[in-house]
């Protein structure tokens, strides 16, 4: 079983739709949760960062974390064609010497928003 599971999609929605992207995880040590957006042939871009259960909102994006269920979500409201990209969830637990934080990624969900 992978530590982080993410539905790979592809997911196709009309412009203006609400998009829900999800990840589940098995390692209860994960305490920090991130969502990245990656355009084709580009590096991932950090969208949301959170470390507590509940919701965090930033513009059209809302990150939701449920640690009891080991489940995180990213909601995109009023989706735009420019939101078309691959979305990666990532999470980490504090780690040993040097305080190096290692991220464990989901495999990514490919999203297309149709105009």
């Amino acid at each position, binding site marked *: 079983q992978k530590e*982080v599971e*993410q539905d*790979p999609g592809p997911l196709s929605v009309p412009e203006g739709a609400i998009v829900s992207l999800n990840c589940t995880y098995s390692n209860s040590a994960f305490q920090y949760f*991130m969502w*990245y957006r990656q355009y084709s*042939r*580009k*590096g*991932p*871009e*950090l969208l949301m*960062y959170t470390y507590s259960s509940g919701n965090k909102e930033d513009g059209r994006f809302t990150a939701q974390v449920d640690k009891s269920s080991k489940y995180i979500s990213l909601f995109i409201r009023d989706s735009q064609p420019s939101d078309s990209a691959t979305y*990666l969830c*990532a999470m980490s637990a504090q780690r040993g*010497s*040097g*305080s*190096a*934080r*290692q*991220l464990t*990624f*989901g*495999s*990514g969900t490919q999203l297309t928003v149709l105009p």
Partner: protein
Amino acid sequence: SQTIHQWPATLVQPVGSPLSLECTVEGTSNPNLYWYRQAAGRGLQLLFYSVGIGQISSEVPQNLSASRPQDRQFILSSKKLLLSDSGFYLCAWSAPNGDTFGSGTRLTVV
């Protein structure tokens, strides 16, 4: 502001040739630095991380090595490339509110 530079953007190398990818960070000191590889349609796999000059930790046994000769410089190397080394290589550093990635190097071994 902090920025991360990674080059080259694209590289085509024959099997058995050496490799050197460079990553530099600006606007911060003593960063934690990481090398990831991303295979097509898959998530990112952590290859190496470094918490300081000369300190390298390897996560996956492989044909690659990493070095950190300066505080803000991280290098990924190979003496002899394999076909299986093809992929998208990403450098990253740990910012307080999430990790920041470079633009990546797409390596094709032929």
